[in-house]
């Protein structure tokens, strides 16, 4: 689905969401109030200015105090790779955006990610992965790195990696693998209105971070939860 199609499905009565330089901000009617929308469209890389534009919108929503849900729509490139962005502290700006979303969550705003295109690396962490519940639409392609690049770094033949990718979701790009890892909670049905699906997803979401449990249940991240639990258990023993 395109962003326009998503917004039309979410807001059949119209909305005030705009896209500028690949950055999505605005709001639309949702249940008895409004839902704030922020995000990245058009496979746009996220740099220092973009991160701060989105965090501004999130913090404004928190300050308004009405506990409006926040929808983070994502079709991004990775972080903007440049000497200038790193010089200016891209790590702080991306972390700040993630912190703003996490603060909103703690302040009573439901935060929902919706990945409908590509996203990777730092941009993915600062947007979609900073929400409490992350949904995806079929065709979405989250990744950390594409397989040719993985082949270059690991010095393994691309054909071997492609073969391994079929049975080992932990490293291969793609939506199915991110679902198996627990990073993506649910895949939505584009044939049905999105508003109801997102509402249902929020209603059944727990306040704890369940991603490692999902990863264990789905087999894509078999040991992370057990390791985290074992550390906590040993820590409690003193």
């Amino acid at each position, binding site marked *: 689905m395109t962003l326009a199609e998503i917004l039309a499905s979410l807001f059949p009565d119209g909305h005030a969401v705009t896209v500028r330089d690949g950055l999505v901000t605005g709001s639309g009617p949702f249940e008895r109030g409004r839902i704030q929308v922020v995000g990245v469209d058009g496979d746009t890389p996220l740099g*220092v200015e973009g991160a*701060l534009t989105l*965090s501004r919108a999130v913090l404004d929503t928190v300050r308004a105090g009405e506990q409006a849900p926040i929808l983070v729509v994502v079709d991004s490139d990775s972080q903007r*790779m*440049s*000497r*200038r*962005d790193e*010089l*200016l*502290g*891209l*790590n*702080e*700006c*991306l*972390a*700040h955006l*993630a*912190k*703003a979303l*996490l*603060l909103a969550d703690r*302040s009573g705003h439901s935060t929902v990610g919706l990945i409908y295109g590509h996203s990777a*690396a*730092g941009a993915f*962490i*600062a947007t979609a*992965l*900073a929400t409490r519940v992350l949904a995806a639409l079929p065709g979405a392609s989250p990744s*950390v*790195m594409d397989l040719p690049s*993985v082949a270059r*770094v*690991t010095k393994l033949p691309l054909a071997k990696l492609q073969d*391994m990718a079929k049975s*080992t979701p*932990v*490293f291969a*790009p793609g939506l199915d*693998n*991110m679902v*198996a*890892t627990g*990073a993506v909670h649910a895949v939505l049905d584009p044939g049905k209105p999105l508003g109801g699906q997102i509402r249902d997803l929020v209603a059944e979401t727990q306040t704890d971070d369940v991603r*490692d449990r999902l990863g264990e249940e789905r087999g*894509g*991240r078999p*040991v*992370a*939860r057990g*390791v*985290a*639990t*074992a*550390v*906590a258990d*040993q*820590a*409690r023993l003193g």
Partner: protein
Amino acid sequence: MAGDRAKRIDPDALSWYEATARQRVLALTDPGSFREFLPPTERRMSPHLPLFDLPRAFDDGIVVGRARLDGNPILIAAQEGRFMGGAFGEVHGGKLVGLLRVALELKPKAVLILFDTGGVRLQEANAGETAIAETMRAIVDARAAGIPVVGLIGGRAGCYGGGGLIAGTCSRLAVSEGGRISVSGPEVIETNKGAEEFDSRDRALVWRTMGGKHRRLIGGADAFCADSVTAFRGAALDLLSRAPAFDLATLEAEQARLEDRIARFGDCRDGTDVWARLGVNDPEAVPGMDTDAFDETVARVREADHDAR
């Protein structure tokens, strides 16, 4: 025993950059006080690396446990940059996440994270990336509960990729000359955008763009340390005592701080341009300054110290 080994390490003589993760932990914390969780004897190794015919480590490149720092109970994690660049894999990430989550129950004086990482381990990329997101959420939860999370950065691998985002989530950061903080590393930028954008072999350029002194001057780090365990210990003790709250006021202040930075320095081409505009008298001299001279320079830069993190 850990305590016996600690006594043999002289924190003044031990270079943070050269030390292993365990040496850093043992020399940083009170002698005999460190207890490791999931120590190497338990052999919690990556289930994925054998698929790539890669050797594993019994600790998956991270040491986690509890200790005392100047008598105060702390939780501590230290990444081992010598194992796969300290990168986040499934076990590695799970250990850090478990440590941060249990902080909510144990309420230590602080959690210290000794970063030494190239970011996500590509062989376990999806697990590493998700673990970074879980880590950031757990840090925010700890901070919101009033537990400072302090990052120390001065290892061989620096603090790159998702590690840079985690660093930006901490309450406070200390960095040394050798420490670098960045999202895209020089090689990654060069590979994707060309050597004209970033010549990764130009080490001086790397340091001026993402090195400890630059980060300290622009307020990206809160303390600058000499390359010794003693210096990092002093910085950790100081920083944990003045951690900013995690609330709307802090994030509004950080928003203003970062917007102001982009407005003032967005057209700068090089670290030296930024430092000149910050009011540093002789920007060209910054890379060669010793710690004392650099501290004097930092003291005159208004942007360096703040509670907006």
